[in-house]
């Protein structure tokens, strides 16, 4: 049952992704991307990452993609008529490289030995049940990864400042 849901969403994600990169209109692309993100969020749930799934929907599909659409609208790119797709040579090269990447990644997944698996099946699920969706992540985030966490905060701050400086009209 779960596997079926997984595969369904996987299919949706892949098809949406393909659509995303092939649509001429940026708005369409953005919408297809949101589709992919949703499907991925479902897969996250299936992989016992409930908190991340929520974040995915809220931050990615919600905030960031809205930002995308916002910018597209702002720059009036919605009704672009001419395609921005590269010529046949570019596409062949891209396809070749893309396939290569996929093959490489595939090979790598085969290389990683399976016996590295440590947690018993359903462990994460049990933790979620015991402690709630956020606690297992928060526990690590605020202890082991406290410094990186703070650094990301600073990074965000810097990004905000940078964005303001860059986008401001009169510099």
């Amino acid at each position: 049952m779960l596997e079926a849901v997984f595969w369904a969403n996987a299919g949706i994600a892949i098809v949406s992704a393909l659509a995303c990169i092939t649509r001429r209109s940026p708005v369409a692309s953005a919408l297809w991307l949101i589709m992919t993100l949703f499907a991925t969020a479902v897969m996250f749930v299936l992989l016992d990452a409930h908190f991340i799934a929520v974040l995915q929907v809220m931050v990615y599909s919600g905030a960031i993609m809205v930002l995308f659409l916002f910018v597209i609208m702002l720059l009036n790119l919605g009704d672009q008529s001419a395609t921005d797709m590269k010529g046949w040579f570019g596409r062949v090269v891209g396809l070749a490289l893309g396939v290569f990447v996929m093959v490489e990644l595939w090979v790598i997944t085969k290389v990683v030995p399976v016996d590295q698996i440590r947690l018993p099946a359903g462990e994460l699920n049990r933790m979620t049940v015991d402690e709630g969706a956020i606690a297992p992540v928060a526990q690590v985030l605020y202890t082991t990864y406290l410094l990186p966490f703070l650094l990301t905060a600073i990074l965000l701050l810097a990004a905000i400042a940078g964005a303001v400086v860059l986008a401001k009209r009169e510099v």
Partner: protein
Amino acid sequence: MIWLAVLLPFLGFLVNGWLSFFRPDAKRAVSVIGVGVLVASFISALAGVVGLAGAVHDAPYIVHMWSWMPVGELQVDLAFQVDELSAVMLMVVTGVGALIHVFSVGYMREDRSYPRYFAYLNLFVFFMLVLILGANFPVLFIGWEGVGLCSYLLIGFWFDDEAKATAGKKAFIMNRIGDFGLLLAMFMIFRAVGSLDFLEVFDAAPAAFVTNGPEITLITLLLFLGCIGKSAQIPLYTWLPDAMAGPTPVSALIHAATMVTAGVYLIARTNILFAMAPVSGAVVALVGAVTALFAATIALKQWDIKKVLAYSTVSQLGFMFVAVGVGAYAAGIFHLVTHAFFKALLFLGAGSVIHVMHHAYHHTHSGEDAQDMRNMGGLRKFMPWTAAVMWVATLAIAGVPGLSGFFSKDQILAEAFARGQGAFLFYVIWALGAVAALLTAFYMTRLMLYTFHGPNRTGEAEAKQLHEAPWVMTGPLVVLAAGSALGGFLNLPHVLPGAGWLEHWLKPVTEGSVPYLSEAHLSAGLEWRLMGLATLIAAAGMIAAWYFLKPDRLGAAKAAPAEAGVQRVLLNNYYVDELYNTLIVRPTDWVSRKVLWRIIDMGAIDGAVVHGAAKVSRLLGWIGTRFQTGNLGTYVVLFVIGVLFVLSAVAG
């Protein structure tokens, strides 16, 4: 006391040097100090020598000042050594030096750099004393190069004249070529003996070296190279005639009486080494004899009065080298002493002539050459004292019996002749010397005739200005004339009563070499005959000059026709300077400039390698920029390719 003799000239240098900057007009003070320190130095040296003569000891008297270069095995002290040889030199240097200083007071009176002149002169005497008193090779070398430096400074004393400055430079560089030999000799001696102190080296030499072996021969030849440079022998003699650019008293002091004889002193000092290397001795004698003759021929045709004396000096130094080369060290030193008297006298006499001539020409603003003998003539009427004392010196150098030069030169030739029984070469050397003696008598008589006899060619207006030099200049001449006349009694020949005083005096220094020298003895009859022959030679030379040369017919320099043929070759010193220029100086310059600097330095190293490397890295950089299309798409493609590589590396 001895250190006082050395220190005083140095103090004189300091004070006069100070005055030259801050009180350039204080000529009286400079004269008093400059001459005073020399006289005081002479007196203290005399006291020291008298003390030495009175003392009953065998070993030389050594004064240690301080440790100079103490490095492990090499222990060099700044130390002075007073023995019989240095005593003789000490007397000559301070005595003749003091007289020349007095003369300089008159000669240089009007020079604007008067204090500087005396500072240099005092410094020279200081270095000369260091040279003759040094107790080891490096200290000797301080003096050796120090006198070269003073020679350089004094030759180029009137440095506004480019030619004079160049002459000084030439002297220094040629001396340095010799110094190179001296340095190498020191290195070899140190390697063999482990010391550079004279006493230790000479004590150890018989054990350390194989007689007539290659090492000792090489050492002595290198030492001799030093002497060649310093004493202006073939092939490094060309600086001495050029050195006449300096003030005339300088020529008298440095380039006749003292510095140029340092080579003879060095060989006499290291006599044991030379005695152990007979081949080197023969080379020394041969070079000396050839130089004596060669320089005498050039002197025949010089018109510049100082050039004649300069070539004469080269020639006489050749005689001295014949003496020390054949192992007659006392005879060499003897000739050194007598030569110091008569050649200093000749130079100073010439100086007083030039002084007066220069005055006369200066008075009439004439641009004529005050040193050219063709502009002189008949000067004995104006300068009787000078003429008289110069005749004494001329007779002495020509070898008229009874005067100093006769005895010393005769002794040298006799010693060379005596060795002829052992090797024919020495007969050749003797013959060369005899011919040189003949030429000496000739060119000296020529100098006197053209200068002091015949009609006056100076010019109408100028002749009125001619007069005898002041007493401060003639006074030293008279003293030197006495020395030239009587100096021969220092070392009379064996056949005369009271003979060989100097030889006896020098015995402690030279006796170490006696076992290595071949026995050379002349019978009394042969010695008398050689003396007679010498007298004949002198007479022949002088009479020939009197007979062939006609001062009455000589014209003034400006009217003189160009020389031709052999005469021109002689006048131009056999074109040796030109030869050196073409063969050595210019090729060196060309190689340095074109090959080393332009081709190797700028072309090969800088151009090819350094800039080549820069160009290669630039090329690589240029290739790199070709990838920088600025197109993000290209970057992404490259980036992905890079990622693929990394991935495949991870995947193994």
